[in-house]
């Protein structure tokens, strides 16, 4: 295992691919692996791309990657697609749109299935970002599953989040709703040659202006038009990403945001660890089942019972 981490740090693509599998499978060695990886992270810039299904996220990812490669940047891509809640299987189709990038040895593309996670990413996507970062990729691009309105996990992972929209998917009210529309550092109206693109563009501009009136912010999310398949507007998009990156750096927000992300991640790890330990103790003896019998029989109630359990494990001083 330590050999594998060392090989990743020396630039072995094969080792990185295998390490990602171990972490993705939440192997018993995963925490140890990530512990060894962590000191080598923090250098890559993380770009998140999210939006509804079919808006062109994969194609945009491919074009952005190509432009970054022309600028001699190395790129890792994580493309997330949904797992079936019924069979657990998944059809991962994002690579189809990444043909140009997939022929480039300096681009590492990994498809990930959500495996039951609902926030738009897989549970372990943030860890895979770290592995690519430690490997030495300058950029890690994370493409979420096609999202509805509530999948905002990407904003906790990415430095810059792009929300991709396409014409024909809804009216003004859609662009006023909460959730995904709130996490954009940049909006992209893709498929801008289609009917309704200009209306969509002005609707989003109105939203951005409203946001600004409600709360003055140092960064006002730009709204860009692209036709990704024709590579139109993609250079300007990369420029806008770079502008946001400079803004984050110069305003000190990059450091602040990353601190907050680290806090959230560490808190989540702590919660996992606590619940694992507590559950081992609680479920380790047969008393939990006996308790359930009592609750079913209405001799006890679940609310008081869980408090009692926790109090026996963590006695108050």
């Amino acid at each position: 295992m330590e050999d594998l981490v060392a090989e990743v740090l020396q630039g072995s693509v094969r080792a990185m691919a295998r390490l990602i599998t171990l972490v993705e499978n939440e192997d018993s060695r995963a925490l140890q692996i990530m512990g060894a990886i962590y000191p080598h992270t923090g250098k890559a810039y993380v770009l998140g791309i999210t939006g509804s299904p079919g808006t062109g996220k994969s194609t945009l990812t491919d074009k952005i990657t190509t432009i970054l490669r022309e600028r001699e940047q190395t790129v890792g891509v994580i493309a997330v697609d949904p797992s079936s809640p019924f069979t657990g299987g998944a059809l991962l189709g994002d690579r189809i749109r990444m043909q140009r990038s997939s022929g480039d040895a300096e681009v590492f593309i990994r498809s990930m299935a959500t495996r039951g996670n609902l926030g738009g990413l897989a549970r372990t996507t943030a860890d895979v970002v770290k592995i690519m970062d430690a490997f030495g990729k300058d950029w890690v691009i994370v493409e979420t599953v096609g999202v509805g309105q509530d999948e905002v996990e990407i904003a906790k992972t990415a430095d810059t989040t792009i929300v991709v929209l396409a014409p024909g998917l809804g009216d003004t009210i859609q662009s006023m709703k909460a959730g995904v529309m709130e996490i954009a550092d940049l909006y992209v109206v893709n498929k801008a040659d289609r009917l309704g693109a200009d209306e969509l563009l002005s609707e989003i501009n109105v939203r951005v202006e409203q946001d600004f009136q409600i709360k003055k912010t140092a960064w006002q999310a730009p709204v860009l038009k692209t036709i990704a398949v024709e590579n139109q507007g993609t250079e300007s998009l990369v420029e806008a990403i770079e502008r946001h990156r400079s803004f984050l750096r110069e305003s000190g927000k990059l450091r602040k945001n990353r601190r907050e992300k680290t806090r959230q991640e560490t808190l989540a790890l702590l919660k996992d660890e606590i619940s694992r330990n507590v559950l081992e103790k609680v479920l380790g003896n047969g008393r939990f089942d006996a308790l359930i019998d009592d609750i079913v029989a209405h001799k006890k109630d679940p609310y008081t019972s869980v408090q009692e359990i926790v109090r026996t494990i963590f006695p108050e001083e």
Partner: protein
Amino acid sequence: MTTKKRIKVIMAKPGLDGHDRGAKLLARVFAEAGMEVVYTGLRQTPEMIVDAALQEDADVVGLSSLSGVHNYFFPRVVELLKEKGLDDVLVVGGGIIPEEDVAGLRKAGVAAIFGPGTRTDDIIKFIEDKISGT
């Protein structure tokens, strides 16, 4: 807590023919069987297929050809996998493959050829048996 290891399959169409109904159907069949299937699409070079297998840490590479190029492309994929140290990846093929070519392909390292009419259950069982056996 621990997520179960899932069989990861690269489904690819090497060469230039555009007949991908079979490949797409099988990609779905494998996903329905609980596998994680990376569908790479049409017109793949052996290099692209092997890069995908490498990056995705695939257990299986499924190749489909209906244009008669299998005798070049299938062995070439096996060869490139070996060059990259991916000897343990199971390579299976399908499509329109004349009976007299099958022995040669098997000899070149293609584990199985599934022609038209093969029961999909049999293909799944073959893959599951091979992967769990390694």
